[in-house]
């Protein structure tokens, strides 16, 4: 059949024309130059290696005892196989695999499209992915985009020894952290490996959907997904939701303190599932929420702790080698310890050096804050300050900002106070300075 070869070329061409042809990943955007290959490219084109690697994912990595799962329960592995068959011009095998995939996910539109193409190719030469004459171009483009990001996500798994730069220090009781990469349409689950000094350990990654107009939310209704450090604030079960949200929803605390300081608006950013009429939504389809397939949401939900689990959304995740990660983590821990010690020392001017001139706490400016501290500290004979449950997350973005959260146990000759505190630190002229402080 003359059409078959055409299909092959066209399909590959259309995929190669997309993101797959581009070099991998955020190596360039990572500020640390030695974060050379943050994601391992499992295989460039052939996917046998991918499948083998995926299947051979060790259940224990030697660093911890928890079994390791990856997202290969999703359709990525099957999609990779299907495209491999198409590539090899084994269209019958490709069709069989596609039909098997559809038995598993009857509402999977991408698989239906591939099936349509493979069937149509048996009757006529076809021009490419979504070959139906007069097919709505936007819908075909959405499905193509999904295929591309899924295959790319599948082929480029996070490397064992690289860590998302944002996860500098997790609280001991934060069992997991969620990291979202909007550029790659991927959501990563990391485990807080407390037995290993709180080192984040990759658990699984999933295809995700972001806002129709991408990321970096600024105002209400801009159909963008926010970028920043958030956490899950509630668990809304399916029964309380309309079908749009699928199997459940987890609101996050957008806009956070920094967002407000920057004048960002909008609300109601959730992590949620998929409506019943489709298995998955296109990579860019929500009004700003982070959307997973229902099965993926259910899997992720098991790891979510309301009020605790960080959800860090980046437009392009930066990865650090273990060494670099340790360096950054130590530097910040030291900085925070200096702040604590300087407060305890009652040397107010030294203490105030940790604060930026742009500092704000509520409506209080730096000068007002400084004046108040000088006055209070003058009356102290002694101060004891303990920091517990410290977490340090780097804020995604161009500027060096970290989000520091801890339980503060303050004692002095005339006052005792315990609170959960949140600070935003920013590097100014090479020095970390506090730009926001408040209760959390």
């Amino acid at each position, binding site marked *: 059949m003359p059409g078959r070869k055409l299909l092959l070329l066209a399909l590959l061409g259309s995929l190669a024309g997309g993101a797959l042809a581009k070099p991998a990943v955020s190596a360039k955007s990572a500020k640390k130059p030695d974060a050379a290959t943050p994601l391992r490219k499992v295989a460039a084109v052939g996917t046998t290696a991918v499948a083998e690697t995926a299947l051979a994912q060790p259940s224990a990595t030697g660093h911890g005892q928890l079994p390791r799962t990856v997202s290969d329960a999703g359709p990525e592995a099957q999609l990779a196989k299907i495209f491999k068959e198409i590539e090899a011009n084994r269209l019958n095998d490709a069709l069989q695999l596609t039909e098997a995939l559809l038995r598993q996910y009857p509402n999977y539109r991408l698989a239906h499209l591939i099936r349509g193409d493979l069937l149509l190719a*048996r009757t006529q030469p076809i021009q490419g992915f*979504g070959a139906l004459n007069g097919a709505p171009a936007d819908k*075909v483009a959405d499905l193509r985009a999904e295929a591309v990001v899924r295959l790319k996500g599948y082929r480029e798994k996070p490397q064992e020894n690289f860590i998302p730069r944002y996860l500098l220090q997790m609280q001991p009781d934060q069992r997991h952290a969620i990291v979202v990469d909007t550029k790659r349409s991927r959501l990563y689950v990391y485990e807080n490996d407390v037995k290993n000094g709180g080192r984040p350990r990759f658990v699984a990654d999933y295809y995700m959907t972001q806002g129709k107009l991408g990321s970096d939310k600024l105002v209400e209704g801009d159909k963008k997904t926010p970028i920043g450090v958030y956490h899950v604030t509630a668990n809304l079960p399916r029964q309380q939701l309309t079908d749009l949200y699928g199997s459940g929803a987890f609101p996050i605390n957008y806009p956070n303190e920094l967002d407000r300081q920057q004048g960002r608006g909008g609300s109601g950013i959730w992590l949620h599932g998929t409506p019943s009429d489709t298995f998955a939504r296109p990579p860019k389809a929500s009004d700003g929420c982070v959307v997973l397939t229902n099965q993926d949401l259910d899997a992720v939900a098991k790891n979510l702790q309301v009020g605790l689990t960080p959800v860090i959304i980046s437009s392009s995740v930066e990865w650090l080698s273990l060494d670099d990660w340790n360096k950054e983590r130590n530097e910040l821990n030291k900085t925070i310890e200096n702040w604590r010690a300087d407060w305890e020392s009652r040397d107010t001017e030294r203490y105030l050096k940790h604060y930026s001139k742009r500092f704000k706490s509520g409506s209080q400016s730096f000068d007002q804050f400084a004046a108040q501290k000088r006055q209070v500290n003058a009356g102290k004979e002694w101060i004891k300050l303990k920091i517990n449950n410290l977490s340090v997350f780097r804020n995604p973005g161009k500027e060096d900002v970290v989000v520091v959260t801890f339980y503060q146990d303050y004692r002095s000759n005339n006052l005792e106070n315990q609170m959960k505190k949140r600070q935003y630190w920013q590097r100014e002229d090479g020095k970390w300075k506090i730009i926001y402080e408040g209760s959390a």
Partner: protein
Amino acid sequence: MTSTPLPRHRSKQFPTLRAMALGLAIGFSVPSFADNLPEVQRLIKQGQYPQALEKVDAYLSPRPKDAQGRFLKGLIFTEMNRPADAIGVFTKLTEDYPELPEPYNNLAVLYAQQKQYDKARTALEMAIRTHPSYAIAYENLGDIYAKLASQAYDKALQLDGSNAIAQNKLALIRDLITTGKGNVKPAAPVAAAPAPVVAAPAKPAVTPKTAGVAATPGTSAVAPTKPTETKPAASAAAPAAPVTSAPAVAKPDNGSDEVAKAVAAWASAWSRKDMKAYLGAYASDFETPKGMSRKAWEDERELRIAGKAGKISVNIDEPQVTIKGDRATAKFRQHYKAPGISSSTTKTLIFVRAGGKWLIKDENAR
């Protein structure tokens, strides 16, 4: 020349599922004495289905296992728009005679009619498994794949069954019943034979044979062969229809206009159901679809055009004509309308100049 693989020709003027109509063209147990099966066939041809049913039941009553009779009964049910009964008959036939491709094929046609394309596909794949060279099943399977593709696209793109392929399908299905009457197995060039077999009768009649219960149909004289393999030399096909009333007389020096006129005249003859003019537009060595004989092809066209109830209209858009010596290619959009059918296709006619006229050598729809 005959062993050179030629591209498979598929006339798509009437994209329709080809039901195997009259007779399993194979030998199996039929009593040698004159029986009333030909009478049943005659009644079917005349559209007297209740009478045909009565006759076939009478025929079957002493020999309930008889495949030929049951096959005809299935056809009668199909014609009588009793698909459930027809499906029952053909299903039983596939169970009792799993080696026969025809019941599978007709099952597929019935399933397709009910839009059960997956079942249709399975049935056709069975027909092909039993008879890898069964051309009609291949063609039908192609249509089923197109329908399945259409459904898949609907689901992928939420088109509510309104996509382009699906519209074609509907027309297809409405045409199904009529095709039950005149369909013909392709004339059978035997794959390796240097000389093509021209013996294919227009309507593969029942060939009663005393012996050979459900013999391998592949050995029969009219066994179809994969149309992609060989094609009979065109000149060896059935006697060419004399070209008496060629609608367009070509002047040798004004080719392009003459070809366009020939196309217009051809379409007009078709619309008028003027079979003489219509068939006369074709060259004597016209490459008939599926390598069927000229006679069989003419009969089929006659049935589809003159034998069609209601008005036919064939309109064409301005053809694009390219001429090379005595060969011309006309490509155009063809808009076909008949009761229950409306289709637009891109058509390519290849003309040859013979005796000052442009005649159609090949016809293709895409």
